[in-house]
């Protein structure tokens, strides 16, 4: 009776890069053509530049990008190309970049065309689990609805399951998650994150969860060289730079700091740089009549770093080694 244009076909057309016509996307036959059309190459280059270290993560992302490219070529040739399961688990110490990479992953998967919208919803246990009977299901469903079309990032996922407290509703949240992770694979990517050993216990008590997670990624601690590079990048982003000799002093600072307790990798580096900025500000503040040039304002000198207590603690600890 009525013919609605566009009805009856698949709901979402494949995302096309600006400037490329639909015809060009259909006829790609080489990897290079698909890379140009989907801008996947730019994404991978950005990843290499802006994330320091994290070799296993980058390798896995490259594999996923390659799979996407080959899938596109297969579809062009008329072969079946089923979306792979993309749920992931990130394990590692604090400050190793899990949340940062999850945010990147949302952008990358969106540009590669695996997820439709590319936004990230970051939650912890409290956003999913309710306080009384009947509270959990609507709460979890609300979060899942908001995350549809993007990535749901669950930090400290092992807190969802508390076997010792029988009035805990974490199990209900886990069950709803499992159901949605299986049935709405095309709509949603779930990324769990936490410390390695606790995630291991969590997976052991929830075998259904482990089987739905296709990619388990380990985030290794950064080496001192990588931490130094991260420090340099952080300063550059904030329009600062190391003065003469300051970089070596910071290297020495790192050598002491990693041995001290509660070291949180990149986060500790950021805190240290913030404190150095404080000391630089105090140093400049002491001369109210000095005209400050751009150089003065954006250089972190070695005394700004040397004033840290970490050096004294490190020297005190040294005789024990």
């Amino acid at each position, binding site marked *: 009776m009525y013919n*609605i244009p*566009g*009805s009856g*076909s698949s709901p979402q057309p494949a995302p096309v890069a600006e400037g490329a016509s639909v015809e060009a996307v259909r006829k790609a036959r080489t990897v290079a053509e698909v890379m140009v059309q989907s801008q996947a190459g730019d994404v991978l280059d950005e990843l290499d530049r802006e994330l320091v270290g994290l070799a296993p993560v980058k390798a896995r992302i490259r594999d996923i990008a390659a799979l996407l490219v080959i899938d596109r070529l297969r579809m062009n040739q008329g072969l079946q190309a089923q979306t792979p399961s993309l749920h992931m688990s990130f394990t590692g110490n604090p400050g190793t970049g899990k949340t940062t990479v999850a945010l990147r992953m949302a952008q990358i998967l969106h540009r590669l065309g695996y997820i439709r919208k590319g936004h990230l919803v970051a939650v912890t246990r409290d956003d999913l689990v309710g306080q009384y009977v009947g509270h959990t299901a609507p709460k979890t469903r609300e979060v899942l*609805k908001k995350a*549809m*079309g993007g990535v749901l990032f669950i930090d400290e996922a092992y807190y969802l399951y508390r076997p010792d407290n029988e009035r805990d509703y974490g199990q209900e949240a886990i069950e709803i998650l499992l159901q949605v992770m299986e049935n*709405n694979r095309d*709509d949603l990517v779930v990324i769990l994150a936490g410390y390695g050993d606790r995630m291991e216990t969590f997976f052991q008590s929830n075998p259904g969860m482990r089987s739905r997670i296709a990619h388990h990624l380990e985030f290794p601690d950064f080496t001192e060289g990588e931490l130094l590079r991260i420090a340099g990048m952080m300063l550059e982003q904030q329009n600062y730079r190391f003065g003469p000799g300051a970089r070596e002093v910071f290297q020495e600072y790192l050598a002491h700091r990693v041995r001290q307790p509660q070291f949180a990798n990149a986060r500790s580096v950021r805190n240290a740089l913030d404190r150095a900025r404080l000391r630089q500000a105090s140093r400049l503040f002491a001369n109210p009549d000095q005209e400050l040039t751009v150089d003065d304002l954006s250089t972190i000198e070695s005394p700004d770093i040397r004033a840290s207590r970490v050096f004294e603690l490190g020297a005190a600890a040294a005789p024990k080694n």
Partner: protein
Amino acid sequence: MMTNPTGRLTQGQFSFLPDLTDAEIALQIEYGLKQEYAWAVEYTDDPHPRNTYWEMFGMPMFDLNDAAGVMLELKSCRDTFPQHYIRMLAFDSTRGVETIAMSFIVNRPAVEPGFSLVRQETNGRTIRYTIRGHEADRAEGERYRK
């Protein structure tokens, strides 16, 4: 009726077209989300034209990004009320507008008996007219049983 050959309820958008498929509903939802409308699901078993406010099935879904989330809610409503009229509303919350921008029926009962004209004779043989749904004789919750 000559103006409504299929005898289906013609309230809201697309009501003279055949039922929208799920894919088409998702496309409409995507359009609404792009316009930053908030989608809501409502149901009723009393489809009289003057019944403006149907029962709400959950709150309007502000800050959703994707059609799949709204479709989950719609599926839940269909499972709960398979024989009710269900419609989707898009609320435009820009200042100064704050009204429903889109509204279309997505679920109908299997049989729609429709309405009939009721004549009431008042003083001096003056006739007042109204319409009444055929299912209105039954109690709420017992209408549109298969």
